[in-house]
């Protein structure tokens, strides 16, 4: 693959990652948000393949397959089940409206570029120059976590954050050592399963899966 083509595809994939994150702020329909998460999982796998081609690394191809299965199939599948069981269709009342959310997204992306300047400066290359995109997705995940009230949206926010970190890891270091990657993926899978069970318990005890119900414990 020629350098120019590599950079073009890389920018395309990273642009897609950022765009799918921003669209999650735009959509209210929970099913659509989960579909965006699938798109993002596929793009992450594509990023791993792209870096694998560049570095002739079989390990990265394997990681790409793992990412695809975990982030584009298994985790969205779990979320779909939660969604089906809960019967909720839309995020009821986010704390921040769509327009302000999109403005915040723009602002957070700028912050991501500012924060990652020392990282890019250490090893300037096409991949590290795309690194702020990963951080921007991390910030977007944070934003979703803080502003959305539905249990599922909070899980989505966490997964968005995790996708951002995974993207940053690929862009900065072409992935972490395999043992860490495996441990991290296993932890992530178990965590989402734990959250699924918790969401079910929440529905059982509160009748809703809404964060507003969680207000009994305080000082």
């Amino acid at each position, binding site marked *: 693959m020629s350098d120019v083509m590599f950079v073009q595809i890389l920018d395309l994939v990273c642009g897609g990652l950022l765009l799918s994150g921003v669209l999650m702020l735009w959509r209210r329909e929970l099913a659509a948000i989960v579909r965006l998460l699938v798109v993002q999982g596929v793009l992450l796998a594509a990023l791993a393949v792209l870096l694998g081609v560049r570095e002739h690394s079989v390990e990265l191809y394997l990681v790409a397959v793992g990412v695809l299965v975990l982030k584009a199939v298994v985790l969205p599948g779990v979320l779909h089940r939660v969604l089906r069981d809960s019967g909720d269709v839309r995020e009821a009342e986010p704390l921040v409206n769509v327009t302000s959310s999109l403005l915040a997204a723009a602002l957070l992306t700028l912050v991501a570029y500012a924060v990652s300047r020392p990282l890019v400066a*250490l090893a300037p290359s096409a991949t590290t120059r795309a690194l702020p995109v990963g951080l921007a997705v991390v910030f977007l995940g944070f934003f979703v976590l803080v502003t959305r009230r539905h249990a599922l949206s*909070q899980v989505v926010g*966490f997964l968005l954050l995790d996708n951002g970190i995974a993207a940053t890891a690929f862009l*900065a*270091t072409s992935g*972490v050592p395999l043992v*860490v990657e495996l441990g*991290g993926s296993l932890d992530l899978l*178990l965590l989402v399963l734990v959250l699924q069970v918790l969401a079910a318990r929440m529905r059982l005890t509160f009748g809703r899966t809404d964060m507003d119900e969680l207000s009994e*414990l305080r000082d």
Partner: protein
Amino acid sequence: MTAIGGLGTAVLLAPLVAPLLAGGAAALLGWRRAVAWSAVAASAVILASGVLAAVATADGSVLVAGDLLRADALTAVMLLVIGAVAVIATWSSVGYIDQELAAGHTDARGAGRYGLLVPMFLAAMVLAVLAGNLGVLWASIEATTIVTAFLVGHRGGRKAVEATWKYVIICSVGIALAYLGTVLVYFASQHSGMGSEGSLDWTVLLEHADRLDPGVMRVAFALLVLGFGTKAGLVPMHSWLPDAHSQAPAPVSALMSGVLLSVAVYALLRYRVIAVAALDPGFVRGLLLVAALTSLALAASMLIAQRDYKRLLAYSSIEHMGLVVLGAAVGTRLAVAALLLHILGHGLAKSVLFCGSGQILALEGTTQISGVRGLLARRPVLAGTFALGLAALLGLPPFSLFVSELALARAAADAGLGWAVAVALVLLLVVFVAIASHGAGMLFGRPPALAASPSAAPPPATAPLPTAAAVSAVLTMTPVRPQTMQPVRSAGGVAPLVTGLAVLAALGVVAWPLDQLLRAAALIAGTP
């Protein structure tokens, strides 16, 4: 190192395998006496491995097993802490679960899950301190969140679900930030000239620490403090802690407070050494100082008006982690030795207090401080251990927290941080008054009028016990022996607590068994 290679492997593998076996036994057999005691045995194995590791590493040598497991003096101290707290907590669990079964708060399935998850929790913490690779350290701390999630919500009900959800979400986000920090450290190591591969191996990183890029390390260390600080209960990511600690079963609270928080601090200690070598030490010290002092201040302010004694203990954990991180901010060898002794003392005192608070809850049926009055007159043994535990926690002699707090203050003053000591001492005074007055109310106070506990939870002790026990025994097919029931079992329930207090006092009077080990650990984690 080569001479003790075989023994080294055994010492490193045993504390991992033993809890896994105990957990496996619980998964296969469900909750029974033998299973409960096997968890105690597994904790004893961890403690024994800690002692062996301490003997082997006190001279500065390192035990290694394979590529991933290693133990130096710092690891040995942490193994001792985990083992000691785990023995008290699992020992108390035997009576605790019997009591929960008898009172109908849990069923055979719940008890079996408890029997499985507690040893897994121990194994995850042991792996965290044995890991030579900082990535594995991260993954095992993350794993503790997963295994403790269902322990926090073990009692069920609205509050348990709420506490668990907050715990899992906040800690996962925090630990995800620590992962990002870990990735950035790896990124810096790839570009430090140690070869293009880079490394997350602690020893390799430390060797090349002065060549890590300061710009990247600054971002990375800030993320690591925020991330592991979440798990350690430091401000501003502490908000899960009082909820989770107050809802979890008493022995689990003991483990979370006594060990889990310290394991997160241990991760920070490992990274601190690297960061100090890579960055200007002022940045590292400033960051840790802010975290430490704000945590102390928050804890002090929340303790004053606290109405719930389990939350009181939880905020006191934030306070003590603040002190420990203050020691890390100072970072000299004396400070590190002192903070490690403090971690051990806090772990023992807190496990005694949390396990004791579980028995008070079972007795009184409320977690409200105002609902517990005149305990000393009614239950002198339990109240006495609780009182001594509070005294230990408040840093009174002869307990070891007195020694460690004194040493921390001296180390900070030596390092030119006298103002920080002054601030901390004022805050500690507030904490002292708050805890002492709440504690005095619970212990002395006027005994409540007959059955004056109009709380939501019915006092289980007053239930017709023989019937309840028989019913639960039939329903759950669990053998409940008469001597495990409420009126008689308090003596057995207090035994682990008294043991913990005795060790705590002994450590305060004669620290010599730990002296050399703490010195060796301070050489590893401290800077001259």
